[in-house]
């Protein structure tokens, strides 16, 4: 195809690609989706529920009246009323707001007193129905009737004179008390939104409204209360703000820096424009490919991917340095000449990215696809399109004097430098014993530490003992299976409580029991209510001065078991919907734990199928270890494949080692740096390490092969590539996300070192054919 047509076709395709990418790419900003993935069906369902289920839609709002002050009930009442009016708010309530719960207990649980009264009727019923047990029950009833809750007891006692409903509720109400702030300085509220917690635009608007409503009410009531918020939507909003900020900052900085560098190197706007358009085409096509593979593109992919332009741009830059100022035919010849080196360099980098994708880190799988397709596209465009679009005159490289001086210095002092390098490498090796791994994946997101601390403070005001991140996870094919398993778990947890290994737990009981257990309770109770028992009850009532005509009858009868759907249709839903997740294939139940000994609880659950002790932090750390192990394996595999490729190319172990050595030396010094500074290594460090090696190998190849036959020109081209890589990755250092900062340090340092070491390590004697 004539150059003119090729040029025209390319420039027509670029806007089309951009428009397609603009319209079809769906961006996500949820950091947890980028960092975390469940390893089995239970964990995946749980993760999905935490991201979009009822739990994700809830805020905890905490009002702080200040030291020595109390929150006025009137203020809370007005705030509740106004918050309820905010568009997108489904419900808002105080944790102690239980009027609806009380009426639901009467409506939903009271008719099932005979079915729900016990987890273990064999042990308690006989004692309850004994003469002494009935007398105690009558005494208790009298106390209750005279207590301030007489109205509720009255309603209950008329249907359930033995107050069996209280048997099951006793423990739970004790727990509910813990949900309520004990310090009148604070008042906590729960706000549930219609939108999912990760629907950041909707949540952001709601958060603004909440603050506005609170601010106005504060002013109107002449108060100076403070409002704190926590919950999944708050974390989601903060994370998105963080990522968006990073993407904008990095994109802006790297674009400006790369443009300036490019202008400095080539002194040509037209060349800058031509390469920039090529890169735009690469980014748009890579976005479309990533979208088609994953169905979405994560903003972190874009943030890191933007940096990867710095890698993809290496190939056209290398070509431009060699071919700028030549005529079209000559450009094709020159670029064809250096193409094998560029291709091999691209292939080794691609191997690095493939290894990255195999590390198991969910976000990096996407980055691998994005960057891998970018590299391939960039290689192809450099080979087949760049010669057609490249114009402009050759410019003198502003770094050529320095580069020449460095090469001459290396040439003159090679022996000394090599000895120095060996000594330094030995020193670096000796420091390796201080290297250590990061054990806690949460350390990867220190930027959210303030929010985590606030979350902790608010939860301490509200929940004295329940730990939100650790619980018993029960899975089964349906609700009945899960409830039956849960009943086995309660027995074991009670035992652990008695042993002192667990202070308390919150299960689905007293709200729900399996149909099997309800049936057993009912059968045993009805069989136990003999004429003798009824007469003994009557005598006990008379002895306590209670109204026999109202309470002597024991109206317990056979009825249908209480079902989950009945509870979910009542206000009791708020109390249990954070404990059960139902999907088409399976049902999960969470039993929340208070202070406990993890190992004892884990062992306590042994032998129960479908029951596991689940710790979010443990899961993350388990994943961190798994990622580390995979990263180590993929690192070795990646290096192995690169060595194999080079061996195939050079058919000489010496040349292969020479080509690899600048990259390996750079890697060695990076590792030594971590060992000396005591920095804990995460799989992210390993990933950066792999990238640095993969890029540095390119320099070894370019320098080793010197296809232009002009070593200074080759080194100039390498310098341009190195500077773009270092600048692009260096731009990540301005990110607030520590994961990106880690990548910035490792890769930028690695490529600079690798570049500088080439003339020391590789002695150029002849051109490789």
């Amino acid at each position: 195809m004539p150059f003119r047509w090729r040029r025209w076709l390319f420039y027509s395709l670029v806007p089309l690609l951009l428009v397609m990418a603009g319209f079809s790419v769906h961006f996500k900003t949820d950091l947890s989706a980028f960092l975390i993935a469940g390893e089995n069906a239970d964990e995946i369902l749980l993760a999905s529920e935490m991201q979009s289920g009822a739990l994700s839609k809830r805020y905890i709002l905490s009002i702080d009246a200040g030291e020595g002050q109390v929150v006025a009930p009137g203020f809370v009442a007005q705030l509740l009323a106004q918050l309820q009016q905010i568009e997108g708010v489904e419900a808002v309530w105080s944790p102690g707001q239980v009027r609806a719960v009380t009426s639901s207990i009467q409506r939903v649980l009271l008719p099932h007193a005979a079915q729900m009264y016990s987890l273990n009727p064999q042990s308690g019923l006989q004692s309850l129905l004994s003469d002494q047990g009935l007398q105690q029950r009558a005494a208790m009833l009298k106390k209750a009737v005279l207590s301030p809750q007489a109205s509720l007891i009255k309603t209950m006692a008329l249907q359930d004179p033995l107050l069996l409903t209280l048997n099951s509720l006793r423990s739970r109400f004790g727990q509910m008390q813990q949900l309520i702030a004990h310090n009148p300085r604070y008042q906590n509220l729960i706000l549930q939104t219609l939108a999912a917690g990760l629907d950041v635009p909707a949540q952001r608007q709601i958060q603004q409204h909440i603050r506005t409503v609170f601010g106005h009410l504060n002013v109107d009531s002449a108060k100076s209360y403070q409002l704190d918020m926590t919950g999944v939507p708050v974390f989601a909003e903060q994370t998105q703000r963080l990522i968006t900020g990073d993407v904008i900052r990095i994109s802006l900085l790297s674009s400006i820096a790369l443009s300036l560098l490019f202008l400095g190197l080539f002194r040509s706007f037209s060349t800058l424009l031509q390469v920039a358009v090529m890169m735009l085409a690469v980014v748009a096509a890579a976005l479309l490919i990533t979208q088609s593979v994953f169905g979405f593109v994560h903003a972190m992919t874009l943030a890191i991917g933007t940096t990867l332009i710095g890698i993809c741009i290496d190939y056209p830059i290398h070509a431009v340095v060699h071919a700028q100022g030549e005529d079209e035919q000559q450009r094709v010849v020159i670029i064809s000449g250096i193409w094998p080196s560029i291709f091999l360099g691209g292939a080794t980098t691609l191997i690095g990215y493939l290894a990255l994708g195999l590390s198991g880190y969910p976000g990096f799988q996407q980055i691998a696809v994005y960057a891998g397709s970018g590299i391939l596209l960039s290689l192809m465009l450099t080979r087949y399109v760049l010669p057609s679009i490249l114009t402009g005159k050759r410019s003198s490289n502003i770094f050529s004097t320095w580069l020449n001086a460095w090469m001459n210095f290396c040439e003159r002092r090679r022996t000394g430098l090599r000895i120095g390098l060996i000594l330094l490498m030995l020193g670096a090796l000796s420091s390796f014993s201080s290297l250590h791994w990061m054990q806690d994946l949460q350390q990867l997101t220190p930027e959210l530490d303030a929010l985590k601390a606030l979350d902790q403070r608010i939860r301490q005001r509200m929940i004295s003992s329940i730990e939100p991140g650790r619980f018993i996870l029960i899975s089964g094919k349906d609700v009945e299976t899960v409830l039956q398993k849960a009943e086995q778990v309660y027995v074991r947890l009670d035992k652990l409580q008695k042993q002192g290994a667990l202070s308390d737990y919150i299960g689905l009981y007293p709200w729900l029991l399996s149909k099997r257990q309800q049936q057993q309770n009912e059968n045993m109770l009805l069989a136990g209510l003999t004429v003798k028992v009824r007469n003994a009850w009557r005598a006990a009532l008379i002895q306590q001065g209670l109204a026999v005509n109202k309470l002597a009858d024991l109206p317990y009868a056979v009825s249908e078991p209480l079902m989950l759907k009945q509870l979910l249709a009542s206000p009791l839903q708020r109390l249990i919907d954070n404990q059960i997740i139902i999907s088409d294939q399976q049902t999960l139940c969470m039993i929340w734990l208070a202070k406990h000994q993890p190992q004892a609880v884990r062992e306590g659950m042994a032998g129960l199928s479908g029951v596991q002790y689940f710790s979010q932090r443990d899961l993350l750390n388990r994943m961190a270890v798994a990622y580390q192990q995979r990263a180590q394996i993929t690192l070795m595999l990646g290096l192995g494949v690169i060595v194999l490729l080079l061996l195939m190319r050079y058919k000489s172990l010496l040349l292969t080692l020479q080509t690899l050595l600048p990259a390996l030396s750079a890697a060695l010094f990076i590792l030594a740096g971590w060992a000396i500074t005591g920095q804990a290594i995460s799989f992210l460090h390993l990933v950066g390490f792999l990238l640095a090696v993969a890029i540095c190998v390119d320099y070894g190849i370019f320098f080793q092969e010197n296809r232009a036959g002009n070593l200074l020109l080759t080194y100039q081209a390498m310098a341009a590539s190195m500077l773009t890589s270092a600048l692009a990755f260096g731009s990540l250092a301005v990110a607030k996300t520590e994961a990106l900062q880690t990548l910035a340090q490792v890769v930028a340092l690695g490529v600079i070192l690798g570049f500088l070491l080439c003339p020391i390590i590789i002695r150029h004697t002849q051109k490789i054919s």
Partner: protein
Amino acid sequence: MDRSKKTFFHDFRGIFYPNAYRTRIGRKVGIVGLIVLLQIPRILLADGTVDTLVSVMARMHSTQPVKIHYRETRRLELLAKPWQGSGFFYARPPAVMIKEQWYPQREIMALNGSQMLYYDPFNDVRHAAQLDTESALSVHVLAFQALLNGDLSRLKDSYRIAFQNQTGHWLITLLPRQDAELTGINKISIKGPSGQPADRMEIDLLDGDRTVYELQAAEKTRLLDQKIDHLLAELQGNV
């Protein structure tokens, strides 16, 4: 008391207190506030003028702590005969209301801001809970706080108010505006001799149960603030 019995009783009180129980307690504590307020005129003035709702309300408005003696009689459908109790009510504007029962056994309950407290010294049981802002209790508490602050319009938000001057005494009738199921109250009647503070309050519940408080101003003491602080500390287990 038998150990197992005691434990069960403890549990039983613990069962209710955090929610339904607390609503009733709160209502009682709210009533404490109302009773105390009704006694303020006796403490502040007794000039024999014709009473009006506005003048009675104005007399109720107080910025000082108040203490009232009460005798309580409850006629309940589930009891074979009426029950009696007695003790003291305390209030300290704007947010503290306390009921200290002495007979038949000592019990203390209080509302401090939005926090409700309960202490049964006999069984050594304490509870703390927050005011349910959607409950009958909150309706009463907000109303009593309105009374304490002389805010008639806010009181009218919760109750329809009727005021009568009868021979030798005045009568205020409060009819809850909230739906009957929420408040559980049919009518509250407060009565007092002309120009005098209230000496009787009757609470008629929708289910037919009835509670009567006979009230009498307790002796004035300059140490009332300290007494209230002491009771609050006792409720919180800090004594």
